[in-house]
């Protein structure tokens, strides 16, 4: 049971780490995309 908890904790940590890396990408994106208008 202890090992299962360790593995689950590790996997949860992995998920948080990936989300943190992804968050760095997302916060760099502008709020409004560049809109090009040709007429």
């Amino acid at each position, binding site marked *: 049971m*202890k090992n299962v*908890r*360790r*593995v*689950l*904790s*590790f*996997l*949860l*940590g*992995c*998920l*948080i*780490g*990936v989300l*943190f*890396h*992804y968050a*760095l*990408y*997302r*916060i*760099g*994106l*502008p709020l409004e*995309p*560049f*809109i*090009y208008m*040709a*007429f």
Partner: protein
Amino acid sequence: MRSPGERRRRRRFLRPNAFFLGIACSFLTCCVAGRVVSRHNIFQDFERLHIYLNPSTYFYPTASQVLELGRAKLPSDKIAVVIGGNSVLYGVGQTPDELWTRKLQARLGDEYRVLNLGLWGAYPAEFGGTAADMLRADHPRLIFVTDVRPGCYPAEIDGVLHRFLFWDAYYKGLLQHDAERETVLARQVAARHDQPAFSELRDGARLNSLLWFNDLWTDVAYNHCGTVWNSGMIENWYVRRRKLRDTERTAPPPGQRYPPEFLDKGMEIARGCLFYNGCRKDEKGHWVDDADSPVWTRLLDNARPAFAEADRRATLIVVHAESPHYVNRLSADDRELYYALSRTTTRRLEEGGFAAVEMGDKFPEEEFRDHCHLAESGGARLAEMVAGRIQRMAVDLGMTHDGAGEKR
């Protein structure tokens, strides 16, 4: 405040050491994965930076990805022709089959390889210019093509709308060292001290050069699935960009290209060029170059630092023109001034060490798709004009294998 019971339950489930080890391992794995994928070209069947491959749909190619694209598309035994500039050279109004850069490739032949990195709204040295600068390090036989309006060269070395690429390349150490550019750049950056968005962009680029998050998640968006909803992709935001095709439409029929409701706007744009008046009237009343005008000093002061001195002769600047549909509606005097500005801009750029060609009044209004973009026939004329100049440049710069090239 959590109750002691809740804290106990959480402690029972979470093993802190394993939890934090998991965070560290996965975060580092993502960083390494970003670095690894950045070393490979992700783009398949690349033609240009169409709507699903550019910032208008939240897709921001990184400097490493653009560099690898260039390396893959431009073999070192060919003369590389990198097209930068804005929507005119991108080919708005031309489907992929009609694209002027395909015609340019056909006209130049197998000794050359053309890569279209024109991007909507880009400044002359922005995006495509950054790509050319990175590629020149391992591709000395490279000609860069960009465009400007008559009488005007914007000052910002890193561009405005798409400067993310410049700063990504800058912090990854992918740009060539050029003392003049760095001096002017430092001055421009200092002048932006009150622009928090610019500071954030630079901080993000600096962090990405260490942690490679933009490289990894842009790769995921291209190869696996979209992760960012955006108003340009309401139905298909989750689809991997690799699957999405260029949707640029052909120019509308000639009778529908100049809607009456856009006449005022088109005239305003055409007249806007006259604002940079660097001409004077001669004794016969014709507009000629005004040697004392500060317009031309400013033009070269802005253009020269954007390119390393050695690269200027390998940079071709197309001085583009508005459609005669609008220019011909100017007064005769303003029309003459407009084309005098175009001629003088071309000559001044040549004197400043660049190669330059002007569209001038050579493109009839039926070859335009709208006020400035070209329809297929206009693209064909542009390809012909640019190809001839590129071939002369390649000979003059000793880029051709036989030293004589295909001089026309």
